[in-house]
């Protein structure tokens, strides 16, 4: 080969992506081109490896959590959580912003993707906030950034994928996500409060314990879901996949029998949506496994790790470099391909530096969560902008303030591994 295969792969990936080839195909076509051009590799591998990548029990969990999230979404469960959040924090200045953030935290314990979080909460909260005098940009920004908690707090599609790629324990990763999620929540609440004081946003009435109890009764049922998931997985009772199944079933029972918001047609629709999303995710998993196979075969991840360690072996310098890289990568690549493609490349590096794999998973997840908030690829922001009916340009100023808060959380999680690792060590003894 005349050119270093690493560069050829990079050029092919970027060119195909820019030409509008779907990501799953970008990865598959790039791998195929490299395999066909390399005389030492037999193309027969294309028939074997993608199936092996898709044949994965752990990733069945992703499909099941998508069903659960979609049922909660279609079953209008977000509204119950919202009323409860409102009774708790509505009396603080900028009440609806706090309600928005707290509802996101509740919902993030049910859903595993930031986009479903943003859609479910944004469609209820953003119109209300606009009515109460909040700017559309502020409402969209607060919804968008707080939706990030969905991928940090368990269950999380990103953490499931990371566990698969890094061969790490899902239970430990889920436990490790709880405190960083609360930290993000706290920092977003603080930021919203400061903005609310400056801008003179309203409160939502006085605090009333009776109202907390009243709305809490309504919210108690949906909040059994995160308890079921956490106790089940962290207690070693369920595998993540089993927890996904039980969560999906329980959400269906709640929405269909208790709230009567889920009829047969809607149920079929949730299966269709989850099935399609899962196929999209899995096709990327399958083709990235093929490309990953070629990279491993050529020993490229080790070469990259060694090249970076050749520049500096200082723990903090390399960690900073990894953070900057994933932050930038997150602005142009989606979470799924970013984890599938980039984590295997950086994992040898993290291992060599002695970074705990669970801690590393949280660092990557928060980086990618922030990346989802910044153009050009800003899936979550686009959803909230379309609900708020504003252009991407308008949302930037308030968005930047909230992203600043998330960056603070990122720095803290990096510097203090205990924020992610303390809870798994207490709960799981690991």
């Amino acid at each position, binding site marked *: 080969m005349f050119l270093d295969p690493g560069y050829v792969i990079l050029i092919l990936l970027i060119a195909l992506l820019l030409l509008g080839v779907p990501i799953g195909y970008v990865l598959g076509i790039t791998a195929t081109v490299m395999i066909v051009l390399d005389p030492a*590799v037999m193309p*027969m591998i294309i028939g*074997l490896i993608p199936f092996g990548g898709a044949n994965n*029990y752990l990733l069945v969990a992703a499909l099941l959590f998508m069903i659960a999230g979609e049922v909660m979404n279609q079953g209008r469960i977000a509204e119950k959580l919202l009323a409860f959040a409102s009774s708790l924090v509505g009396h603080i200045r900028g009440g609806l912003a706090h309600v928005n953030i707290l509802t996101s935290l509740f919902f993030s314990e049910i859903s595993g993707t930031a986009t479903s979080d943003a859609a479910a909460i944004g469609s209820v909260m953003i119109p209300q906030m606009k009515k109460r005098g909040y700017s559309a940009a502020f409402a969209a920004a607060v919804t968008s950034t707080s939706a990030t908690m969905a991928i940090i707090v368990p269950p999380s599609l990103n953490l499931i994928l990371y566990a698969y790629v890094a061969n790490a*324990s899902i239970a430990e990763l889920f436990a490790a996500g709880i405190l960083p999620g609360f930290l993000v929540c706290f920092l977003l609440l603080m930021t919203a409060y400061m903005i609310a004081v400056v801008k003179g946003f309203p409160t939502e009435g006085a605090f009333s314990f009776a109202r907390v109890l009243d709305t809490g009764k309504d919210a108690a049922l949906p909040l059994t879901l995160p308890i079921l998931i956490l106790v089940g997985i962290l207690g070693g009772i369920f*595998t993540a996949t089993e927890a996904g199944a039980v969560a999906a079933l329980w959400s269906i029972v709640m929405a269909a029998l208790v709230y009567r918001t889920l009829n047969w047609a809607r149920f079929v629709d949730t299966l269709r949506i989850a099935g399609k999303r899962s196929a999209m995710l899995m096709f990327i998993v399958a083709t990235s496994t093929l490309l990953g196979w070629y990279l491993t*075969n050529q020993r490229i991840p080790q070469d990259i790790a060694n090249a970076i360690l050749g520049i500096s072996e200082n723990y903090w310098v390399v960690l900073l470099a990894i953070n900057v890289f994933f932050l930038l990568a997150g602005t142009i690549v989606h979470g799924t391909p970013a984890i599938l493609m980039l984590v295997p490349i950086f994992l040898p590096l993290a291992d060599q530096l002695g970074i705990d794999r669970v801690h590393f998973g949280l660092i990557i997840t928060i980086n990618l969560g922030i990346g989802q908030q910044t153009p050009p690829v800003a899936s979550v922001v686009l959803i909230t902008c379309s609900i708020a009916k504003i252009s991407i340009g308008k949302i930037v100023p308030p968005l930047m303030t909230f992203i600043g808060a998330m960056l603070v959380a990122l720095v803290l999680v990096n510097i203090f591994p205990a924020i992610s690792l303390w809870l798994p060590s207490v709960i799981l003894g690991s």
Partner: protein
Amino acid sequence: AQAQVLQINSSLPEGSFAHAFLLEFQERVEAELPSMDVQIFMGNTLGSEEDVLQGLGFGTHHASLSASAVVQINPRTAVFDLPYLFENRDQVQDFAASPAFDMLAEGFEGRGMVLAALWDNGFRVITNSVRPIVTPEDMNGLRIRTPTSRQRVAMFNTLGANATPLSFGEVYSGLDQGVIDGQENPAQIADSARFYEVQDYMSLSNHVYLPTFMLFGEPWLNAQTPEVRETLLRIAAETAPWTFAWGDETDARILEELADKIEINEIDFDAFQAAALPLYDDPLFVDAIGEDMIAVTREVLGLE
């Protein structure tokens, strides 16, 4: 001359027995065949064991140090699922030097791969948090985690335990929370997975011995010169005794280190062998392994 690449796959992780054996093999091969570039891929990095084994036949993969998944290709290898078949590594090596090995190797013929040697993999021990297991009666009612293997489940249930298949990743917390009482694995895994933190007793049961299978793909092997082919197969066979000696020593060292962390005891092997013997005629085992293979094995090991 251009370096010839030999990629060896293994489903076992870095730092495992298999990894140590492959590093030794690499050293020996590269000493005798300087033009051979031996590359080791641990932990399924070049495909699941099922895909790697299939790839040996296609030529996409060169060689594999495989474990239990070979049963899918060659059912005769299920002979190693027979409980209490071997008491020590000498018996395993006797077996490997007998006609039973030829019969085992024959089972791979026509599957696109060649069995070069059987290497060590460590004897299995049972850990639990209830009582030391010495006689079969001690197994009564214990909830023991097993891999998803029909034979292993049947074995523990026959001995009076309650076999609970669970994926490996769930075992530590399962033991910690008391969902299961114990588990069975080689001592090295009980050590590296820190099961001693949540278990009180380790019984040196040797209840099952699964070797690793050093397999070469026929398409890759046939593309080599007869000389290289012969050399590789010879080195693989010569490495076998080294792996058993290394495994024996390492197991002893691991047990010594574990002695402070968990109570270790020997079992009454003969009593267990007698209790498990009915399984040697159980259709679950006989139909999978084949009567001929079981007969040869019993003859070689003097089991009646």
